[in-house]
């Protein structure tokens, strides 16, 4: 609740005050503060995962060996050769993972090797999707913050490249959302109900693989069709002359 107050309500009231000064451009500040919310909420969620699903946590963070002063991996290429997971070309900040997850840089964080291999989630996909998602979140904050600075100086509409970057960023939150789902759902494997029911035991015995493949293909076609229709509508909308706000 405290975090919610600090990071949600306070920026809102600030945004409202800025809006009073700045008129219609307040939406940009709204978006900026919406992005800033990502930090506390994301952090809180990761802390929760660290406590409740440690295997998922270390898989997405790329921590394979148990250690105190565990580092936060900024970049790495996960490899799982012969059951020996390791990160190549990694860039890390020492101690930060221990601090973020358990509040002290000396905290002991269990690595994936400490868990029985049959309980490991896949290591590559959740790691990659999680890191891209976090990078996108930081990108949102950076680009919105930058745009807000330019707006305060009255120069926002002079930067064609910035405006273009903002336009092309429109689909990125959707991408970030999907990556988050991949992180959560692949990262929770091999369990469908954590520690109670394995995904392999939850499969319907009477639904064949062919039927699943058919439904997946059908839904893909349907979703691509709906997406194309939506996209054509959006493109048509974007090409229309902008109309000034009534307010």
């Amino acid at each position, binding site marked *: 609740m405290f975090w919610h107050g600090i990071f949600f309500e306070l920026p809102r009231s600030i945004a409202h005050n800025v809006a009073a000064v700045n008129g219609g451009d307040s939406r940009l500040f709204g978006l900026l503060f919406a992005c800033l919310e990502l930090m506390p909420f994301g952090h809180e969620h990761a802390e929760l995962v660290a406590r409740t699903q440690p295997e998922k946590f270390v898989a997405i963070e790329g921590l394979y060996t148990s250690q105190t002063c565990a580092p936060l991996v900024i970049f790495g290429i996960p490899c799982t050769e012969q059951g020996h997971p390791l990160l190549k070309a990694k860039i890390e900040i020492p101690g930060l993972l221990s601090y973020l997850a358990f509040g002290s840089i000396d905290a002991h964080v269990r690595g994936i090797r400490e868990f029985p291999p049959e309980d490991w989630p896949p290591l590559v996909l959740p790691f990659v999707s999680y890191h891209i998602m976090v990078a996108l979140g930081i990108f949102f904050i950076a680009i919105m913050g930058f745009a807000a600075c330019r707006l305060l100086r009255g120069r926002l509409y002079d930067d064609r490249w910035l405006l273009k970057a903002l336009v092309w960023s429109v689909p990125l939150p959707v991408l970030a959302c999907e990556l988050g789902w991949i992180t959560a759902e692949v990262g929770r494997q091999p369990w469908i109900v954590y520690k109670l029911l394995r995904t392999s035991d939850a499969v*319907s*015995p*009477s*639904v064949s693989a062919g*039927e699943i493949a*058919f*439904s997946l293909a*059908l*839904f893909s076609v*349907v979703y691509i069709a*709906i997406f194309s*229709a939506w996209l054509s*509508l959006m493109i*048509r909308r974007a090409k229309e002359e902008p109309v000034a706000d009534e307010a």
Partner: protein
Amino acid sequence: MDINTILFALLGVLMTGYAVLDGFDLGVGTLSLFIRSEEERRLYITSIGPVWDGNQVWLLTTGNVLFCAFPLAFTTVFSGFYLALILLLVALGARAVATEYRFEYTSSRWVWFWDRAFGVGSLFSAVILGVALGNVLRGLPIGPGFVWKGSFLGLLNPYAIWIGLLSCALFVMHGALYLGMKTEGEVSHRNSRIALRAYVVFLSLYCVAAAATVHTSPFLFRKADSPAFWGLTALLVTALAAVPIMIRARRRGAAFIASSATIALMIVVTAWATYPMLVQSNLDPELSLTIYNAASAPGTLAAVLVIACIGMPIMLGYTFAVYWIFRGPTR
């Protein structure tokens, strides 16, 4: 009365609510397939515009209560009906998207396409729901361990398809009565005439289906000697008889209520006849799913009941609110 029975009754109430409410908007969608004028199709979609998605919530809650309260019945039946339910989802999805997208762009080809999607989606939904119900009435191939032993093509048996046609005719009648009530002038008159014709088709299909049910599903008539069975049946016959009388008398609201009562009583009679059975196994009656052997743990059942006691008033509240706000004819 134990908690299993209460939740069985809740399932019946939810299914009845769904069939009565979504029944007419599926019917309206099916009827829109036969309308040439784009303006009139717009009127049809607008007449159900504010209410159809609320109506569909009743289907979701039916599925949810079945999942939470009687998970074995849910898994067995939904696995068996897998492809059928996927097709139902696509059909329901098509009409959902169509009702929104249709109004977003004015090209005649665009509107034509989404109007078709709306109509065909409605027609398919009405038929698939009927076919599914037909299969449940007939009994399902449930083997040992409550595992489905049937096939997709097995679902397309003559009896189930007949029930599919029956539900389609019923929903068309129900939808035409709704349009008769919600529109004015020529459209209203025409739909009252259509409702009367659909009634004749429905009644003939129903008589054959009733006779076929005696033959295919004797287990539904185990309670045929009890007065309640005949009492409910008498009510159903009264409601059925009231529909054409009210149409002829031009009492459109009453005709719609009579057709709603018909749908509700058909489900109540069926539910009463099957109780305490949920799904009959046609391989071995011992393998049938009942409200006891398919139920969740007692704690879960209690939780479902508590959630239903909170959720049902909300659902009923907004259902009444939206119909009240959008009362009066659609133009």
